[in-house]
């Protein structure tokens, strides 16, 4: 087959591949579509959907941030409640002593004769903190209740009553100190003016009489 004929054949086949006519109502279809809103491309949904999802998440985060920071601002109370829970559940650790008796530095108006109640200030403050924390954090109060249920029963130790020492029992008399004997002054005789040393002082001998006994 000659090149010329082959080229002509290639041209024929290529023309066949692009031969064809649009449908007879092509014009009417185009005109009908002019008034319709434009069709979205197939890839727009693949991009628009994730983008809108991200936008919703960002907006939700932006809305939730002030509330989150407010909760963080109320942190000390919640931290206290957490610490209280930890203290209750910890198997080993300092247990607040509710039986400690603290005596005031000055005598009370009623005097020292009456028995003082144990100082339960710590316990009351703990109770108040727990109540406040439970009021603010609904879900954490449930957890605290569970922990409280697992905690051992509280110890009921009767307060130790310490009898105050009465003022009458104290010795009121003055302490008598006996008079000490007067000490006689020690007289020291002045040294002689010529300060004569005894003979043999530099001869290597020692005068035993001058040594202290």
């Amino acid at each position: 087959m000659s090149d010329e004929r082959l080229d002509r054949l290639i041209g024929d086949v290529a023309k066949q591949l692009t031969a064809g006519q649009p449908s007879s109502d092509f014009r009417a279809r185009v005109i009908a579509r002019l008034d319709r809103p434009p069709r979205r491309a197939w890839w727009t949904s693949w991009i628009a959907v994730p983008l809108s999802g991200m936008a919703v998440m960002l907006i939700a985060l932006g809305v939730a941030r002030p509330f989150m920071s407010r909760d963080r601002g109320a942190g000390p109370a919640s931290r206290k409640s957490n610490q209280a829970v930890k203290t209750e559940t910890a198997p080993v650790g300092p247990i607040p002593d509710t039986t400690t008796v603290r005596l005031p530095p000055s005598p009370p108006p009623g005097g020292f004769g009456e028995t003082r109640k144990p100082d339960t200030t710590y316990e009351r403050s703990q109770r108040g903190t727990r109540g406040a924390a439970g009021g603010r954090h609904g879900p954490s109060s449930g957890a605290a209740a569970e922990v409280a249920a697992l905690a051992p029963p509280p110890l009921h130790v009767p307060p130790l009553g310490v009898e105050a020492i009465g003022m009458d029992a104290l010795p009121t008399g003055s302490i008598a100190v006996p008079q000490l004997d007067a000490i006689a002054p020690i007289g020291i005789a002045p040294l002689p003016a010529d300060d004569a040393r005894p003979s043999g002082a530099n001869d290597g001998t020692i005068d035993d009489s001058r040594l202290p006994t």
Partner: protein
Amino acid sequence: MSTVCVSDADLVARARQGDPAAFGELVERHRMAVYRAALAALGSHADAEDAAQDAFLVAFRRLDTFRGDSSFKTWLLTIAWHQAINHRRSLGRVWRRMVAPKDQEEMESVLENVAAAGPTPEGATAHHELRRELERAIRALSPKLRDALLLAQSGEYSYDEIGTMLGAPLGTIKWRVSEARRVVRARLQQRGYVDVR
């Protein structure tokens, strides 16, 4: 109003003012060129019809951007080619081609009809086989070579218009057409359809 002697520029001006009949006339005048460009890119009549309609819609919405530096047909063909390439790249179309390779069968039946016009049964069969092999060789070309060859052989476009559509210089388009022919010939020689000199 008759539009037979009205130029494209006048129709464009009237379409810009909201005259759908003027744009309809533009559609009627250029639908074949637009459709065949889409067919050259897509190889499927159904896809080419969709792409051609989309091209006219896009052109209508962008009429304000047409400055008249080139002819309306060239401007419209550039839009049509981009629309066809977008269709070609779409995943949906790839999927349809995988599921229902209908267009291949369509094209084969067309070629069979052409081949049936041979002088003798033996000659017709040989001619038919050669055409099928040619078609396979053209389809196997790289997109750049195939597009240039199909557009050039369609008879609808000048080389300048093809260069504008494909965004390549005139010399490049000519080289692509020539290279496409050479590659097809080489393939036919490989298969024994053409004598090797």
